[in-house]
C-alpha cells in the first residue's frame, strides 16, 4: 500500500483571499493576526524589556533590515555576498556628514539612505549584466577591498575611523527608528513584490530572457531593485553609525555580509518575512551564545550549510504552508 501526502488549502484561506474576507471577523482575524501580532509584540512588548535586551533587539532589527535588502536583490536573481558594502557606505556617509559638517542624525540618516543607495547602485552598475555567482563574487570582493583601501590610503580616519559622532537622543528613540524602518521596509517590499511591478522583478529571476523578449529593459529594473536594496542597507549603516557613535572599517566586515545571508536562508528566501524571522532567531541566539566568541561565526556558517542542503525552503515557507493548508495521507491510486 503506497501512500502519499496530499495538501489542500484550508477553506478559510480560499474565503479570505477576496473581498469575502470582510464577511466575518473570523476571516479578518485569519488575515490580520499573523501580521498584527508580531508588529504589536515588536512595538509594545519588547520596549518593556531591560535596556540590554532592547539593545539586542536593535541590532537584531539592523540585521533583519540587511537580510530584507538581501532578499530584495534575490527577488531579481542577484546573489549578493557583500551586504557590508551597503552597510559600510551608508555608515561612512552618515559619519562624514556628521563628523565634518555636524549635521544632526535627523538629516544624516535620510541623506545617507538616498546617497548611499545611489552610490552603491552606481558602483555595482557595471556588474549588473553578470548573473549568479559572477555577481556574487564581485559583491564579495568589493567591500573587503574598500575596507583595505581605507586602511591603505588612511582617508576618512583610516583604521581609527570617524569617532565621536552624535548618538540618538535616547535608546528608545533609536529602538523605534530601527523598528519602524524595519516594519515599513518589510510591508513596503512585500507590497511592491506583490504588485505588477514586482511580477516583472520576479520574472527576471525566473527567466530573464523571456522578460527581455517582452520588450522590457531588465537592466533598468535590476538597477531599480539594486537601488531599493542598497538604500535599505545604507539606512541600516547610517543608523548603526549613530548607535555606535563611530564609522569605520568594521562597517565593511564580513559580519554584515554573512549574517543577513544566514538569516534569509534560515528564514526562507523571497518572502521578506522569512529573513526577518531568521534574524530574530539567529541574532538573539548568538547573543545567548556570546560566551562562545569566535565560535558564533562557525555556527552561522554551519547553519548556512545545513539549511541550504537539508531545508532549502526555510522556516517561513514551512510555517506558511502549515497555516494555509492541511495535509493528509491518501492512498496512491492504481
Amino acid at each position: 500500500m503506497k501512500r502519499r501526502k496530499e495538501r489542500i488549502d484550508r477553506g478559510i484561506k480560499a474565503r479570505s483571499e477576496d473581498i469575502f474576507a470582510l464577511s466575518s471577523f473570523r476571516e479578518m482575524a485569519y488575515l490580520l493576526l499573523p501580521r498584527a501580532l508580531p508588529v504589536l509584540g515588536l512595538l509594545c512588548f519588547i520596549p518593556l524589556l531591560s535596556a540590554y535586551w532592547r539593545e539586542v533587539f536593535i541590532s537584531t532589527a539592523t540585521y533583519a533590515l540587511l537580510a530584507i535588502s538581501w532578499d530584495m536583490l534575490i527577488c531579481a536573481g542577484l546573489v549578493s555576498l557583500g551586504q557590508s558594502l551597503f552597510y559600510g557606505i551608508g555608515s561612512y556617509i552618515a559619519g562624514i556628514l556628521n563628523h565634518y559638517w555636524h549635521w544632526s542624525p535627523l538629516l544624516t540618516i535620510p541623506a545617507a539612505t538616498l546617497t548611499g543607495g545611489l552610490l552603491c547602485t552606481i558602483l555595482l552598475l557595471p556588474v549588473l549584466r553578470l548573473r549568479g555567482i559572477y555577481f556574487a563574487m564581485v559583491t564579495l570582493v568589493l567591500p573587503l577591498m574598500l575596507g583595505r583601501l581605507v586602511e591603505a590610503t588612511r582617508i576618512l580616519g583610516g583604521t581609527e575611523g570617524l569617532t565621536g559622532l552624535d548618538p540618538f537622543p535616547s535608546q528608545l528613540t533609536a529602538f523605534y527608528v530601527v523598528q519602524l524602518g524595519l516594519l515599513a521596509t518589510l510591508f513596503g517590499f512585500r507590497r511592491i513584490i506583490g504588485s505588477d511591478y514586482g511580477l516583472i522583478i520576479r520574472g527576471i529571476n525566473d527567466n530573464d530572457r523571456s522578460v527581455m523578449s517582452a520588450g522590457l529593459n531588465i537592466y533598468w529594473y535590476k538597477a531599480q531593485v539594486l537601488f531599493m536594496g542598497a538604500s535599505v542597507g545604507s539606512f541600516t549603516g547610517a543608523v548603526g553609525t549613530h548607535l555606535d557613535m563611530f564609522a569605520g572599517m568594521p562597517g565593511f566586515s564580513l559580519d554584515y555580509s554573512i549574517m543577513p545571508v544566514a538569516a534569509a536562508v534560515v528564514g526562507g528566501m523571497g518572502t521578506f518575512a522569512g529573513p526577518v524571522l531568521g534574524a530574530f532567531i539567529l541574532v538573539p541566539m548568538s547573543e545567548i551564545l556570546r560566551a562562545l566568541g569566535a565560535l558564533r561565526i562557525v555556527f552561522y556558517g554551519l547553519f548556512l550549510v545545513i539549511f541550504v542542503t537539508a531545508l532549502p525552503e526555510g522556516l517561513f515557507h514551512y510555517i506558511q504552508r502549515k497555516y494555509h493548508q492541511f495535509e493528509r495521507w491518501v492512498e496512491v491510486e492504481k
Partner: protein
Amino acid sequence: MFLGSLIYGFINSAILALLAMGFNLTFGISGVANFAYGAIYILSGFLCWICINSLGLPYLLCVLLSILCAVAVGILVYYLIILRVKGLALSEVMATFGLGLAIMELFRYFGFVGFRYTLPVFFDGSISIGEVFVDYQRLIIALSAMGLTAFIFIFTRYTRIGLAFRAIAQDERTALTFGIDSDFIGALSMAFGSGLGAIAAIVILPLGTIAVEGGYEVLINALAVCIVGGLGSTVGILVASVVIGFAQTFTANYLEPHWMILVSLIAIAAVLAIKPSGLFSHQKELEERI
C-alpha cells in the same frame, strides 16, 4: 630597481597564478564555485604545521599528508554538500561559503593566531640575478607555478580523465552519452582543485605566517584573477595573473606599497566595464552576460 621589479613581478604573478589555479580548475570543469577554497588553503597549511610541530613527522611526509587531506576534504565536500544542491548556483555558493567560514573561524577559535605558525622553507639561502637577491623559496614558487601549468595542460589533453574533464566542461549532457559519469568527474574536479590549493599553500606559506585572514585574502585574490581572466580559462588565468602581478609589483615599487590593493580593484572594474565575462572566456560567454 627595474630588474628587481621585473623579477619580483614575475614571482608575484606566479603566486597569483598558483592561488587561482585550483579555484579555476574546479569551476571550469564542474561549474562549482568553491568559495571554501580559501579555507582549504588555510586548512592544509595548518595541517602541515600540526604534522611538523605537534606530531614531529618528517617534512616531506607532512606535505604529502596535508595534500591528501585537502583532496579528501574536497571529495567529501562534493559528495556531502555540493551534490545535493548541484546546479543551483546560489545554493552552491552559499553552502561552500558557509563551510569555508566555519572552517576558518574554527581555527581562529582554537587559537591558531600568531607569528609562530610558519612553515619551513624548502631550501635556505638565496641567489643573485644581476644585482637582485632572490631566495630559493621564491624560485621554487615560480618553478612550481610553471610546472603545475604544464601539468594541467598535458593532463587535460593527453589522459582519459583529463579529456573527460574537458568533455564535462564543454557539454555535460553530451559527455553523459559517452559514458562519462559527471558526478564522479565533478568530485575529481573538487579533489584536484583542493589539491592544487594545498600545493599552493605549502609552496607559498613559507614566505609569511599562516593566518586565518590569509584564507580570505587567498579567496579574494583567486576571485580577482578569475574575474579578470575569465572563469574556466587557463590561458586567461595566466594572462590575468601576469597583468595583475606585474602591475601590483610596479605600483608597490614606484608608487607606494599601500596602493597595491587598488590594482586588482581597478583591474576588476575595467574588465567588468569592457568585457564582463573576463578577458579570455568565450566558452560560456552567453550564459554569463545574459
